[in-house]
């Protein structure tokens, strides 16, 4: 497989992964601007180190690590984010491009999932990672990743019915 960073094709690669990466980063930060900062740092590090695209789980692990660092760095910000999450306030900017009420309801249902289930769902559905890659990115076993995904879908099915 061609190394992801072997050519000056970062723009193509980034345009493919950026939306999913941003969505993943938004798990930890409410602001889209902060999420973009995190994604930028993670992608630049990944690219500089010439990682292979086969190791894209590293890119998501980097986003996760930087997002957690970002929260820890600023205690006030961390408190604000924690408060926002516990009070289930809507995100400052929407994480999805919503076209109708059905999609709004589905996005809200996704937002209401427990974080460990939601991050697996995001990696699986919108980033198209395998359970093996998800396990690597999150530092859990493959079985754990698969069961969290199944729990996420089960919970979503309880709160949302496709029309």
């Amino acid at each position, binding site marked *: 497989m061609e190394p992801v960073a*072997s*050519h*000056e094709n*970062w*723009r193509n690669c*980034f*345009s493919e992964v*950026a*939306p*999913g990466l*941003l*969505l993943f980063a938004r798990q930890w930060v409410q602001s*889209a601007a902060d999420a*973009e900062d995190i*994604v*930028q740092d993670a*992608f*630049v590090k990944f*690219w*500089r180190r*010439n990682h292979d695209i086969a190791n894209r789980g590293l890119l998501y692990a980097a986003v996760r690590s930087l997002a957690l660092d970002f929260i820890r760095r600023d205690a006030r910000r961390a408190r604000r984010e924690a408060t926002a999450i516990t009070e289930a306030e809507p995100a400052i*900017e*929407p*994480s*999805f*491009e*919503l076209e109708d009420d*059905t*999609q709004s309801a*589905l*996005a809200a249902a*996704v937002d209401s999932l427990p974080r460990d289930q939601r991050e697996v*769902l995001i990696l699986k*559905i*919108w980033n198209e990672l395998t359970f093996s890659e998800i396990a690597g990115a999150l530092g859990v076993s493959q079985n754990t990743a698969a069961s969290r995904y*199944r729990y996420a*879908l089960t919970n*979503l*099915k309880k709160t*949302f019915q*496709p029309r």
Partner: protein
Amino acid sequence: MNDFSDLEDELRKLRPAQPSPVLFERVGEALKASRPFAAANATSSWWRFKGVTENWWSLGFSLAAAAVLILFAVITMERRHEQQEAVAQSSAAPETRPAPLETERSTSRSRFVPAGGTNLVYNARDEGLHFADGSERPLRRVRYNTQQTWRWRNPETGASLRVSYPSEEIVLIPVSVQ
């Protein structure tokens, strides 16, 4: 997962928010900033320009200089030692062979002759097209990481000396636009 296929389809219809165009510019700038040896130092467009990482070169030259100094020191010490041996032998008992021959022999034994060199390229990275200052034609910048090794050999004794150091080389190749 068949139970959830409808739900998964609905989820896939949700499109994540797109990144702002500014993000692309910022990532491009950050990647550019990570390559400090830009083509700004390029000379004529048709000459191969060898940019260097100063740290690597200084390390390489230091190692090479140290190796040469050690080589000279070894040769000098060996020559002195053998001259002393010759003097001692000639003073202890008359030698059948004259001393100058002994000195010549010791000199030839101390001689190291170049035996070859290798330049092993272990990584080559195409860094895309760039415009050097004053150049109207784009140049493709390729960065090579190499391991250079030089060898010397003493034909009399069979002893060998090897100096090896890493180096980094940036090559600008003119690109013809048609």
